[in-house]
């Protein structure tokens, strides 16, 4: 079976797995807690680059570099969360989108630290034997599975109900004695730190870290996958990624023989299909494929 897992296959599957983790973390932030985070790529990219810089530029030991990178993302998300925690949805959207853009810009301009567009590398696997890519995929899969299980369980806990209550009616939740700001900040920091952690695990998958890895497409792909799959369902991110990123970035790119002169067309078609899928999902199943359908006569 492992003969089928070529280095390219492992790279594609690891990328898909990273998106499943990001979309599921976005479910916790948006679907459960109602936090409109459009800076997913900022937290993921910061984790990835912080890890790469610490490991390569400062020669920090591997596990410590990962730990410090996650701590940096947690600290930054705490600062951002403290600013946005009581803002309205539109302001949170703009603030987090701006954060993602700032991270990308800083990575591009601060060449002394990140090597800019030339790229920072190469980020090794923790296990530099022949099976390094396979082990990294296994670790990413295990971490993603843990995140999905956590998402599935938290909704049934008192804390999950509290987050859902806050999402649906924050003033009422506050009137019940809930410190909604603190709970919102806590879930934001935890999930952003986990996005950073996924970023550290994705760094050796990409090997060379370049600014084009952390463009806004990462954020939008995670959002589209979640909305298509079902923002309120813990498996919404899994299904959404399976129907979008997995189909295009793995199945078609790996198994559909597209002539090289038409390779660019596939990317354009992918964007169009993503857009159409999103519109159709919003029209007929606003809460995604795993959410309830639109009631008759509600349009």
């Amino acid at each position, binding site marked *: 079976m492992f003969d089928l897992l070529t280095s390219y296959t492992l790279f594609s599957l690891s990328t898909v797995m990273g998106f499943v983790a990001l979309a599921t973390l976005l479910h916790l932030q948006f679907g459960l807690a109602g936090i409109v985070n459009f800076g997913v790529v900022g937290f993921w990219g910061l984790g990835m680059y912080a890890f790469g810089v610490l490991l390569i530029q400062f020669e920090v030991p591997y596990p410590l570099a990962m730990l410090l990178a996650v701590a940096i993302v947690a600290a930054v998300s705490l600062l951002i969360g403290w600013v946005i925690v009581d803002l309205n949805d539109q302001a949170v959207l703009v603030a987090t989108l701006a954060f993602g853009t700032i991270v990308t810009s800083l990575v591009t301009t601060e060449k002394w630290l990140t090597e800019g567009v030339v790229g920072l590398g190469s980020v090794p696997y923790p296990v530099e034997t022949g099976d390094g890519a396979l082990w990294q995929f296994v670790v990413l899969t295990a971490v993603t599975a843990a995140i999905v299980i956590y998402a599935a369980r938290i909704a049934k806990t*008192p804390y999950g*109900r*509290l987050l*859902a*209550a806050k999402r*649906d*009616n924050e*003033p*009422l*939740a*506050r*009137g*019940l*004695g*809930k*410190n*909604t700001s603190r709970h919102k900040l806590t879930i934001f920091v935890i999930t952003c730190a986990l996005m950073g952690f996924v970023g550290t695990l994705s760094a050796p998958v990409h090997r060379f870290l370049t600014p084009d890895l952390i463009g806004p497409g990462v954020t939008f792909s995670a959002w589209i996958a979640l909305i298509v799959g079902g923002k*309120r369902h813990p498996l919404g991110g899994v299904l959404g990624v399976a129907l979008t990123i997995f189909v295009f970035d793995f199945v078609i790119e790996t198994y559909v023989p597209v002539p090289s002169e038409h390779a660019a067309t596939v990317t354009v078609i992918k964007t169009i299909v993503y857009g159409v899928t999103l519109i159709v999902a919003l029209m007929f199943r606003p809460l995604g494929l795993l959410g309830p359908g639109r009631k008759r006569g509600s349009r």
Partner: protein
Amino acid sequence: MLELRGIRSGYGDVTILKDVDLTVEAEIFAVLGANGAGKSTLMRTIARLLAVEAGDLRFRGEDVTAVAPNRLAEMGISLVPQEANIFPNLTVRENLSLGTMFGTRSSRSRIDEVFDLFPDIAARADQKAGSLSGGESQMVAFGRALAQEPRLMLLDEPTTGLSPKYVNLLLEKVRQIHDSHGVAILLAEQNAVKALEVASRVLVLSLGKVYLDSPVSETDLEAIQGGYHI
């Protein structure tokens, strides 16, 4: 129990309540007035969902003019807002359990007590609250507020839009809650006749000012109606 002195409050630059004085003891206190008189603003101000522009707000002798809304709940004030007073995506039982964060008794015993008081919603315990009728939703909101073991309940027009059957039922439950639990109740109502049937004291607001404040036993309907004619 609750004292308001010279309270001014409103929305942004618009002041709705103008120098409102009010003292609520362990009683059912009806707040009446025409649309726009400031009843809901008064409730939201006491619950600290609106900022106090001027004046003092005291609860059981403690100045609560600037405390956070969640702290008020801990002190024993529960609010049942007029609208959006349930969490539609949670079940009835989950809605009720959110009211049991503070208090001395177990969550289960408090929820069971609510189900005893409102058997209609006990049958729908595991149903999403968003699928309930208006009257049933009000019962859930009442029940959740009661599960908080409050000393003072703020009920903001709880019978608005309900059928006569539910109006009578809910106001009877208000009386029961007060009699059996000793909870003080501040009841903002459009339906003056019904409110006066359960209240022992009445306050009439007119354009954000106190028009009348007296015991129900010493007040006739004509005097109250004066507050509705601007």
